[in-house]
């Protein structure tokens, strides 16, 4: 019962007065930062590194972990209320959360998000507790061919992520692919579409795209529709109470996607953003009423919210058990570990059990705190919508600019935010859906790199994707998910024809 003993040690750290205090600070800071459009955990943790210098590492790291999952928890708020993603992991939350808020169900949407987040976070901490040592083998099971297959599987969902014209969805996706190729190509070191501009060498940060296409474009639409008063009356907070039917509807997605999110979080490189998209698509694919997705579906909100929180805990598996940072935030956390004199890796559990288990135990505590903090705040948060429209619009623009500037303190990025805002606005006007663009941007980069790494390894032979069971089975799933809906449609058409 090593894990059990370890966990006891962990709770000793987490439940000490110091432990509780730093968990609380961490999750409060995290929630607040997450709520603000664009400001994410990376900059918050980076600012904390010099502050925590010389502190006892266990509480310092417990606090930083709290900032991380607290931000993912809080990030849903501005996605739902303003269509301005708080962090990149909550972009998918806006797909159904924002329509719900517009239908006057903002309170309900926030409550669903908080509960889904809590369950996703808690389930994944339990998994982390029980399985962290064993899961390190899962974290390394994906080689380049398997990553390619996983990303390919995600991409098959492009058509299902859009309403209306499939051709327009495809055009948006291709545009997303084109944008992600901008920058220095990692496999050759060649500059692509940079026009020699040093600001483009690293390509675009995901947040610039997400805030541009969602927040700035939304602001433009609000300005355009300013005569439309329907949204500014007072019904929009709605009831907080979830009915039994609501709870029943979200129970399926939450229980499934907590596991899916956790597993995707464990894979280095996948992380909360990809997990939330894949979970959204997953639920839409298996839903009886997929046409409700994107129009305020409870399932469509619960799925990404449980998944992104679960993925956040999952991301601690490779970090704590292998010393591999799977995402930008965990990379900064790895730096924080080193500055505090702790080497994360396969030996952390035996060398520093109080840190390894302390972080895990504190996450359990932190999720409870987050729920207690967030639920009573919902009525006040939802009042954001009562802020006079001109003020609200200015605030969203300001926060988006601050968020983008805080990524790398580069003014060029601000212009790019406006460019993508204009693009997003144009896409709205001409009804090109934004989600396929975003999805292609997230998955496309990793997919291309994984494909080319595979090709180099196999000396150009495509058989590398079918030689081993893991990529082969992922590709088969992709194929099935493409063919089955088409087949079902064909069959129902034929039945309808026969009946006639």
């Amino acid at each position, binding site marked *: 019962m090593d894990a059990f003993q370890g966990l006891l040690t962990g709770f000793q750290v987490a439940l000490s007065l110091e432990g509780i205090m730093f968990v609380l600070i961490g999750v409060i800071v995290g929630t607040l930062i997450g709520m603000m459009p664009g400001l994410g955990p990376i900059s918050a943790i*980076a600012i904390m590194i010099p502050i925590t210098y010389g502190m006892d590492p266990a509480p310092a790291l417990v606090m930083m972990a709290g900032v991380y999952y607290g931000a993912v928890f809080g990030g849903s708020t501005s996605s739902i209320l303003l269509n301005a993603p708080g962090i990149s992991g909550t972009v998918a939350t806006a797909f159904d959360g924002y329509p719900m808020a517009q239908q006057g169900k903002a309170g309900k949407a926030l409550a669903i998000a908080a509960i889904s987040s809590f369950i996703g976070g808690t389930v994944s901490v339990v998994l982390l507790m029980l399985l962290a040592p064993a899961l390190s083998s899962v974290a390394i099971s994906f080689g380049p061919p398997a990553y390619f297959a996983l990303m390919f599987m995600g991409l098959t969902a492009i058509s299902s992520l859009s309403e209306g014209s499939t051709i327009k969805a495809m055009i948006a996706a291709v545009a997303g692919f084109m944008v992600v190729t901008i920058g220095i190509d*990692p*496999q050759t070191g060649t500059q692509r579409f940079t026009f020699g501009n040093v600001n483009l060498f690293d390509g675009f940060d995901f947040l610039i795209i997400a805030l541009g296409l969602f927040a700035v474009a939304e602001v433009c639409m609000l300005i355009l529709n300013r005569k439309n008063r329907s949204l500014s009356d007072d019904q929009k907070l709605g009831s907080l109470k979830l009915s039994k039917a609501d709870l029943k509807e979200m129970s399926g997605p939450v229980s499934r996607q907590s596991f899916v999110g956790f597993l995707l979080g464990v894979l280095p490189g996948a992380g909360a953003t990809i997990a939330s998209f894949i979970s959204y698509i997953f639920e839409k694919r298996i839903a009886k009423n997929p046409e409700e997705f994107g129009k305020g579906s409870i399932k469509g909100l619960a799925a990404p919210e449980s998944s992104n929180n679960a993925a956040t805990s999952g991301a601690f598996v490779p970090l704590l058990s292998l010393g*591999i940072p799977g995402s930008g935030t965990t990379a900064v956390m790895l*730096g924080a570990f080193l500055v505090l004199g702790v080497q994360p890796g396969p030996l952390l559990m035996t060398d520093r059990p109080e840190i390894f288990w302390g972080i895990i135990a504190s996450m359990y505590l932190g999720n409870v705190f987050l729920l207690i903090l967030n639920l009573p705040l919902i009525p006040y948060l939802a009042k954001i919508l009562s802020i006079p429209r001109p003020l609200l619009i200015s605030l969203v623009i300001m926060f988006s600019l601050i968020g983008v500037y805080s990524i790398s303190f580069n003014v060029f990025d601000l212009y790019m935010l406006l460019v993508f805002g204009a693009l997003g606005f144009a896409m709205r006007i001409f009804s090109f859906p934004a989600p396929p663009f975003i999805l292609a941007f997230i998955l496309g980069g990793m997919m291309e*790199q994984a494909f080319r790494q595979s090709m180099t390894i196999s000396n150009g032979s495509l058989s590398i994707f079918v030689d081993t069971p893991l990529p082969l089975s992922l590709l088969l799933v992709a194929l099935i998910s493409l063919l089955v809906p088409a087949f079902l449609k064909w069959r129902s058409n034929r039945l309808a024809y026969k009946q006639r």
Partner: protein
Amino acid sequence: MKKTIFASVLTVSALAFAGCGSEDTANTAGEDGTFEPSKGIEMVAPAGSGGGWDTTAREVARVFGETGIIDENMTVINREGGGGAIGWAYVHAKEGDAHSMFVASPPLMFVPLNGQSEHGHEDFTPLANMIADYGAFAVREDSEFEDLNDLFDQMKDDPESITVIGTSAPGSMDHMQFVRIAKAAGVDPTKIKYVSDQEGGALTAVLNGSVDVFSTGVGETIEQVRAGNIKVLGVTAEERMEGEVLSEFPTAIEQGIDESFVNWRGFFGPPGMDEAAVDYYEAKFQELSESEEFAEVREKYGWNEMYMGSEEYSEFLEGEKEEIAALLEEIGLGQ
């Protein structure tokens, strides 16, 4: 409105974070030809928080302050982007500013040689080198290869059978340190298969057997070696390193391959920095390098001492650059 207050605090701190540099570039050399900083010194880390450059800059600034070697406040700012190019361009624009410097390592050479920065080391004023780090070539614990010669013999027989992975792009550090040692061992450098993984998947790909060799920094391998996941076939240091696990790593030179590679880390000022200021910083860095406090920092991160004054540093860099440029030319990545 808690949210607003918090946001404004954050804004202010973000602005303070970014805007520490003032544009004062006046020549501050005293009348007797000596230099003393007259205001805070800006230390640029041309990368984001948490990485090697950022850590070095922050530790150096901290120890400078704590020991009182330099009294003036030293503020670290991050100028991220373009593999360093954005930070370099930023410092380059501060010509003659004696209160500005940045931390650098071999990418300051590789990135311009790969055509991705207008500015290389020769465009700046070298102040001092502080630290040496070395590369390591690791394979999975159960690999058939026992030493570098096993690996290189296999690469000579069948170069297509071996894939090397690293974090940096082709033509940059992880790639070129391997090419340099392999070439000295007689491997055809144009036939080395290298893939880059910048998403943190390089070690993963070695552990799950997707690729064969991991070319990385020595520090990245220690925990994995201790855990029995990988073994280090050779390191690029000239002599055996000191330290618990480090001393077990054989050098390439020991294995009969007469080549080494040092991942140097030092500090540069903007172009045209006053000579008196260079002398001042050079002496201060030497004092820092010899201090007990900085020795502790080196030990904490597993860095090796490698102090070089401005002039020696310049000559060393010239020699390195020539060699790397020739090597890049040979494998077809020269610009």
